[in-house]
């Protein structure tokens, strides 16, 4: 079984972002960048499935500027076999990303496509579902467990009320949630080995897709900040404040 995994390069989750004072966006110059944490979980799941024999081949795909190769190297060091870099300096929206991944799926013919459930920069939570729609495949979003059964994959999903299990025909798209697994750190030998693994680079323009933005970002502002309040000294005071608030 062949799996494609999409990996996004984002501002590292530990970085406190800074909104530019002119409202034009978030400052990313000189900021530490990493693989989107949910995508790490997607890569980890594919690698575990390869280790248990369900998966034979893992391709990691990343879309963006030249530095996305670093993100792909991370995926390769974790255990992916090959990288595909769709190179562009444009800021792409989820619909455009889904179209590109759809194009990759048609070329590579995978049995499953794994994506993180949401990127921690735009918090859109769309790409996996959009990709599944364009492919007309089933989708297992917010996955916290994946089992293979006769006729497809059973996916446990984290939903608002608890957990839901669905069965999907293959091929399908899976979006990975926090508790699916704990991603590994790549070992030094694997980081070295990853340098020799192939990464194919494709210019976005060569795909001939309509990836023009549909949303015009007018401004990006700081949210209203809460001020630190008062530190109380006794439980009695705390109880009074609680009584006032309810």
């Amino acid at each position, binding site marked *: 079984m062949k799996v494609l995994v999409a990996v996004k390069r984002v*501002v590292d989750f530990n970085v406190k972002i800074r909104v530019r004072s002119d409202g034009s966006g978030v400052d990313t110059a000189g900021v530490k960048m990493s693989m989107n944490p949910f995508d790490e979980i997607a890569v980890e799941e594919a690698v575990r499935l390869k280790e248990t024999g369900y998966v034979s081949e893992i391709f990691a795909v990343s879309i963006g500027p030249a530095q996305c190769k670093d993100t792909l190297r991370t995926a390769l060091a974790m255990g992916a076999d090959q990288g595909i870099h769709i190179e562009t300096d444009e800021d792409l929206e*989820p619909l455009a990303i889904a179209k590109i991944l759809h194009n990759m799926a048609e070329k590579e013919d995978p049995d499953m496509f794994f994506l993180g459930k949401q990127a921690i920069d735009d918090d859109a939570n769309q790409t996996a579902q959009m990709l599944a729609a364009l492919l007309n495949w089933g989708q297992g*979003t917010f996955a916290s467990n994946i089992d293979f059964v006769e006729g497809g994959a059973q996916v446990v999903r984290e939903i608002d009320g608890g*957990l839901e299990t669905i069965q999907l025909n293959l091929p399908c798209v899976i979006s990975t949630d926090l508790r699916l697994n704990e991603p590994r750190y790549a070992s030094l030998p694997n980081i070295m080995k990853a340098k020799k693994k192939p990464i194919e680079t494709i210019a976005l323009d060569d795909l001939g897709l309509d990836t023009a933005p549909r949303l015009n970002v007018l401004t990006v502002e700081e949210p209203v900040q809460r001020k630190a309040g*008062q*530190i109380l000294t006794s*439980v009695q005071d*705390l109880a009074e*404040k609680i009584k006032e608030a309810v």
Partner: protein
Amino acid sequence: MRTLVLAEHNNLELNPQTLNTVTCAKALGSVDILVAGQNCGDVATACAEIEGIDTVLIADDENLAHALAEALATLLISLAENYDAILTPATSVGKNVMPRVAAVLDVQQISDICEVVNKDTFKRPIYAGNAIQTVQSRDAKKIITVRTTTFEPASPTGGSAVLQNIDMVGSPQLSAYVSSELSASDRPDLASSSVIVSGGRGLGSVENFALLETLADILGGAIGASRAAVDAGFATNDHQIGQTGKVVAPDLYIAVGISGAIQHLAGMKDSRTIIAINSDPDAPIFKIADYGLVADLFDVLPELAQALKQ
């Protein structure tokens, strides 16, 4: 503009977040509601009573019983030509189905909007709420999920919408419902409760996490959790509040043993009053709390319960 709101429900009862979504939709134009499910007539009746709704569409079909994304999207797409905007609350159902609809319609969805600026311009949080983006959509049709905590609920009574049955068109048969494990609780729903008592890693164990129940009982509140507490197995996933969990804004939020990672703050910082109890005086939660107590929570909780009972 004509808008369609997808009602969130469990075939028996309407999820109140639908009411907040209706308020958002009214800012755009006239509102119809779609109730898709199986044996969901009571939900449709409830929707018809919501103030200011024109028509309630009812699609009652076995393929819609569990809100599977593939079937629900097929239905929504079949209705899309009649509407300028389709909205759902940003719940696990809404997040699951709407991008599927948007992609087929070749529309860039606008997720989790917290303000309607005008008919094509919206505000939405990015970077775990650490920035607010204002976006103008160039798409003719708008596909929107709504951050319900920032919109008042529409009145559930006083309306007299027309009920209209519609047919499910085809069924994709790409997925099937197997089972669910839903947390049974007599407590108020986390998303709509006016008081939330929330626990973090500081609780230390499942048994200790249960200490929050006394406090929640006294206050008639819901129980929430940080990601750390859920990852550690102290609480189930449906309790998680934060960037990737639930977003809440109760009148009172009591954070117990929660340090306050930005990912957690993203889900609760719009609460009216925030109270934090933590033994670490440098915990980031104190930077946004209205009132804080630096103390061992195991000393505080019993004493606080006693004080509140008086």
